[in-house]
């Protein structure tokens, strides 16, 4: 049972345009959402997160939107740059205990930013 889904395995965007990556989840207990970026042969790198009490969080070129009623979040990258080409993972967590949380990951979307 896949609780976090990224239905687009790949996305191609021109440099300078907006990239929109989508993520859907099914578990209502998730209360914290994260986006990670991954280059080949490297570990996932944390990009941006959002708590369930918010509907938007912005950090530079990256903005995450959360629609709790639709159980949907999206990552907007504006403007897209060639260095943004990577695999983007959506992740969600519910506080497991006060000391650790279990991240549930989507399967990733490969973003290619073309010149």
């Amino acid at each position, binding site marked *: 049972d896949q609780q976090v889904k990224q239905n687009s395995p790949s996305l191609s965007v021109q440099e300078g345009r907006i990239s929109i990556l989508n993520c859907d989840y099914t578990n209502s207990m998730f209360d914290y959402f994260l986006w990670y970026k991954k280059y080949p042969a490297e*570990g996932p790198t*944390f990009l941006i997160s959002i708590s369930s009490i918010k509907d938007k969080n912005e950090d530079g070129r990256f903005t995450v939107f959360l629609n709790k009623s639709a159980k949907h979040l999206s990552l907007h990258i504006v403007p897209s740059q060639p260095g943004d080409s990577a695999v983007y993972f959506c992740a969600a967590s519910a506080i497991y*205990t006060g000391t650790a949380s279990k991240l549930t990951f989507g399967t990733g979307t490969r973003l290619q930013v073309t010149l």
Partner: protein
Amino acid sequence: DTAVSQTPKYLVTQMGNDKSIKCEQNLGHDTMYWYKQDSKKFLKIMFSYNNKELIINETVPNRFSPKSPDKAHLNLHINSLELGDSAVYFCASSRYGGGEQYFGPGTRLTVT
């Protein structure tokens, strides 16, 4: 300075062998994790330790045994390796339970 490091980066071994993967973090975090990324690219949590105490133990064969000698280190020992253990194993750490997790570069394990 590497925040979360793992050794080795690549590990090729035969079925039935026992191997260990080491992880160290210099972020001062209290919580560390092991994740497995399988051939279908699913990243799934295996274990979590907080200050040397096991907190999360997912449904993982008991051939996998994590060990945390101190809060900066979390090692993964695997006994009697099987072909299905071939995967990339990522270590991660977080400051506390609810925050973002920072990942190491991964260890690609290939069992032949």
